[in-house]
C-alpha cells in the first residue's frame, strides 16, 4: 500500500491532527485517532480481544476441508484385501492391481498419485471407517449434525465457534472461511469469524482505488464511533481486515517451492489459505468447501470419470498446498470431513447412494502419517449397518486429538460434550 497517498486538501488535517497538507493514509489516521482516544470507546470488547492479546496463538493452524455431498471413501482408500469389496462393486470398484498399495489392507485410487509421496514421507495420514454418533443419510441433517458436533444435546452452536470461544487471543483472521461468503455452520455462534470468497475479492466494492479506499475508510470509521458495540465492533474488525487484505493484494502472491495449484475453486481457496498462513495475520482455523461428491449416478471407474477427476483435483490441490507451505507444514494440520460415506453396494446407475462410515484424510507436519488408522469393521453383509460401512471411530475423536496435541486446547468437554478420553495416536504432540 502506498504510504504517502495525498487526499484532496480539505479540513481533515484540522480534524484529526494529521500533518499539515493533508498527507494521510489509513495508518497515520489510525495512529492519530488512537492518540486522541477516538477509537477506544465503542470497540472495547474487540480491542481487548484483538489488539492487546497477552500471548499470540502458538498452536497449529487447523484447516478443515469439507467434502460436501458425501465423499465415497471406499473408492479413494480402497480395502483391497477385503474379499467383499469387488463383490459389492463389480462395475465401479477399483481393481486391486491398479491400486497404489498403502499397507496390507488398503490401497489408494490411482488418481490420487500426487498424494502417495506424502503418505510415504509421513505427512499424510488416513483414518478409515469414521462416523457420526448415528447414521443420518440426509445431506442437510448430517451436515448440520457434523458441524454442530454435539449429538444428544440441544446446543445450537458449531464446534469451531466453541473452540474459538474458549480462546482469549486473536485477530480478525483467527477463524476464516475461504472460498465462500457464508461461513460453514461449524462457525455458528457468538465468536467472530470472517468469510471471504478470496483474499483478492475481499474489498469494499465502492472503493475502486487507493484514494477512494482511504475516503471510505475514514468516513466509515468516524460514522461508527459511538454506535452500539454490536455494530461498531464488527465494523472496526471489517475495516481492520480490509486494511490487511489491501496490503496482501498489493503485495501479490506467488506460491513457494514451485507449487502449482489446480486452477479451480478448490485450488484457489487452498492457495489463499497458504497465503494467509504465511502472511502471519493470526489465522487459527480455516475452512474450505469442496463439494459435488454426491455421485448417485455415473461416477465412472478406475480409468476415468467423475470420481477419478474429483480425486485428481483434490490430490493436486492438497499436494500443491503442502509444497507451497514448505517448512510451515510444521505448524499446519489439515483434515477432510464429509457428512457421510456411501453405500457399499453400487446402484444400478453406476453410482453409490448415501451411506455411513467415511474416510478422513489428515495432512501436516505433525500427523502420524504413512498409516491407515482406525478400526476396520469389514464389509461382509453382517458387518454392515443397514447396508453401509460401519463408522467405528467418532469423527470428533480425530478433531479432539488435533485440538489437544496440536492447537493447545485444554479440556474439550464444552466443545464436544460427552467426548470421552479415547484417542487414536493420530498426531504428535506439538513441541512448545
Amino acid at each position: 500500500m502506498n504510504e504517502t497517498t495525498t487526499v484532496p486538501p480539505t479540513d481533515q488535517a484540522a480534524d484529526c491532527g494529521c500533518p499539515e497538507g493533508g498527507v494521510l493514509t489509513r495508518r497515520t489516521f489510525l495512529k492519530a485517532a488512537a492518540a486522541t482516544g477516538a477509537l477506544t470507546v465503542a470497540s472495547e470488547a474487540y480491542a481487548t480481544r484483538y489488539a492487546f492479546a497477552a500471548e499470540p496463538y502458538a498452536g497449529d493452524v487447523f484447516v478443515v476441508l469439507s467434502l460436501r455431498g458425501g465423499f465415497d471413501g471406499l473408492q479413494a482408500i480402497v480395502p483391497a484385501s477385503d474379499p467383499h469389496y469387488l463383490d459389492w462393486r463389480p462395475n465401479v470398484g477399483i481393481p486391486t492391481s491398479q491400486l497404489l498399495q498403502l499397507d496390507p489392507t488398503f490401497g489408494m485410487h490411482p488418481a490420487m498419485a500426487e498424494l502417495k509421496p506424502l503418505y510415504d514421507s509421513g505427512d499424510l495420514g488416513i483414518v478409515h471407517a469414521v462416523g457420526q454418533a448415528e447414521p443420518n443419510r440426509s445431506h442437510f441433517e448430517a451436515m448440520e449434525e457434523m458441524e454442530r458436533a454435539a449429538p444428544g444435546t440441544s446446543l445450537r452452536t458449531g464446534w469451531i465457534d466453541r473452540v474459538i470461544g474458549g480462546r482469549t487471543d486473536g485477530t480478525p483472521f483467527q477463524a476464516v472461511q475461504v472460498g465462500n461468503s457464508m461461513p460453514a455452520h461449524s462457525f455458528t455462534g457468538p465468536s467472530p469469524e470472517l468469510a471471504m470468497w478470496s483474499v483478492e475479492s475481499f474489498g469494499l466494492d465502492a472503493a475502486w482505488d487507493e484514494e477512494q479506499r482511504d475516503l471510505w475508510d475514514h468516513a466509515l470509521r468516524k460514522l461508527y464511533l459511538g454506535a452500539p458495540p454490536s455494530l461498531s465492533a464488527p465494523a472496526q474488525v471489517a475495516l481492520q481486515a480490509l486494511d490487511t487484505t489491501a496490503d496482501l493484494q498489493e503485495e501479490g502472491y506467488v506460491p513457494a517451492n514451485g507449487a502449482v495449484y489446480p486452477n479451480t475453486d478448490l485450488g484457489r481457496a487452498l492457495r489463499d489459505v497458504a497465503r494467509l498462513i504465511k502472511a502471519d495475520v493470526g489465522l487459527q482455523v480455516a475452512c474450505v468447501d469442496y463439494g459435488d461428491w454426491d455421485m448417485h449416478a455415473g461416477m465412472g471407474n478406475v480409468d476415468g470419470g467423475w470420481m477419478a477427476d474429483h480425486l485428481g483435483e483434490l490430490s493436486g490441490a492438497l499436494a500443491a498446498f503442502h509444497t507451497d507451505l514448505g517448512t510451515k507444514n510444521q505448524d499446519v494440520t489439515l483434515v477432510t470431513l464429509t457428512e457421510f460415506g456411501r453405500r457399499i453396494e453400487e446402484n444400478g446407475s453406476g453410482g453409490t447412494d448415501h451411506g455411513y462410515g467415511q474416510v478422513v484424510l489428515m495432512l501436516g507436519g505433525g500427523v502420524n502419517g504413512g498409516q491407515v488408522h482406525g478400526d476396520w469393521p469389514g464389509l461382509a453383509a453382517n458387518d454392515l449397518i443397514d447396508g453401509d460401512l460401519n463408522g467405528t471411530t467418532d469423527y470428533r475423536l480425530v478433531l479432539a486429538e488435533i485440538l489437544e496435541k496440536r492447537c493447545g486446547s485444554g479440556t474439550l468437554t464444552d466443545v464436544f460434550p460427552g467426548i470421552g478420553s479415547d484417542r487414536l495416536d493420530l498426531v504428535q504432540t506439538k513441541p512448545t
Partner: protein
Amino acid sequence: MFDVGAATLARAAWSKRQLLEVMVDFWSNHLNVTNPSDNVWDNRHDYDRNVIRAFALGRYEDMLLASARHPAMLRYLNNAESTKGSPNENYGRELLELHSVGVEAGYTEEMMRDSALVMTGFSVDWSTGAFVYRPQWHHKQAVQILDWSSANATADGGYDVGREYVRYLANHPSTARRIATKLCERFVADVPPPTLVDALTQTYLDSGTAIAPVLRELFGSSEFEASLGEKVRRPMQDVIATMRILGIQPDSKGTRGLRSLYWMIESLGDAPLAWVQPNGYPDTADAWRSAGGMLGTWNATMSLVAHWWPKELRRPPLRDLLPPRLPNTHGKLVDTLARRLVFRTLPTEHKDAVLQFLGKNADSPLTKDSDAVKWRLASLVALILSSPYHKIR
C-alpha cells in the same frame, strides 16, 4: 421449493401488507421448516400458505394445530416415521421446547418422551404425500405432560388425544410468555421490557391465543414508542429497507433480478426461510455481529444504490431522492439526504465525516454541477445507507 424463498423475498420487498409479511417471517422462524430442505420439496409451499400465512394474524392455537398435522413439519422433525415400537423424539421435543412452553416450563425427560409418544401416528401417506393418521402406529397408554394428562386408551382415539394435547400447549401460560417475549424481541428490544411481556402474556391468554389483540397492545405501548433505534437490522431487513427507500422495483419481466437478489441475501446468511436448525433465525444483534456480514451489507448497499447488480431490478434515478431545487450548500445537501434516507439529520461529528468524504465543509456552495450531485452522488447515498443510522431501526 426454491420459488417459495424467492416469493417470500418478493413479498417482503414489494407487498403492501407489511405487517403480514413481518409476521409471516416471525412465525416461519418460530415454527421453522427449513427451506430448501431435501425432505420437504413437495410440500413446503403448502406449509407456507396453509399453516403460516393462513394464521399469521389469526389464532396461534389454529396455527400450531395445522403445523402438527402438516406433512412438511412431520417429515422435517421425523414424526412421520415415529411409531410406538420405534418412537422418534425429534418432533415431540421441539413441540415442547421450541413451538410452545419452552424448557423453562420445567417438563421432565419422561414428559418429553410422552410428548413424542402421544404424537405417534401423526404421519404422512407415502404415496400421496398427504397427512395421514395411522392408528396402528399410535402408542396407547396413559400420558402425563406438565399438568395435562390423558388415559389415551385407544389407538383410534389417538388423533383426538394428540389434538387435545396440542391445544393445551398453545393455551399454556408458558407458551403465552414465550410468544410475548419473542414478539417484544422482534419489535421492541433484544432485552424485552418485562412489564410489556407481562401485559402481552395476559392479552394472549385472555384472547384465546388470538394474535391481533396482542399486536395491537404491543404497538400501542409506551415501550414500543420508546424503542425507536433499539433494534439492529438483520441483513435481509437491511437490504429490503435500502430497496424500499430507493424505490427499487421488480423485474419488468421474468424473475432474474429477483433471483439475483435472493442470492445476494443468501450470501449474507439471511435467505428467507433458510435457517437450517429447527429454532429459526436468531433475532438479536449479537447473533448477527459479523465483520464479513458488515462488509457484505456495505457492498450490497453500494451495488443497489449504483444499480450495478441485480441489473434487472428497476431503480429510479438517484436525483429523484433530492428536491427539484437543490439546497445551496453541501451542509444542507447532507441534511436533506439524511432526512430522506435515514429520517433524521446527523449529529455534527458524523455530518462532518460525510462532508470530509466529499472533500467539502458545510458552507461549501452546491450547484447542479457539483461532484456531490453528479458522479459522487451514488457514493454519498451509499455512505449514508452504510452508516449505523440505517442499520438501526
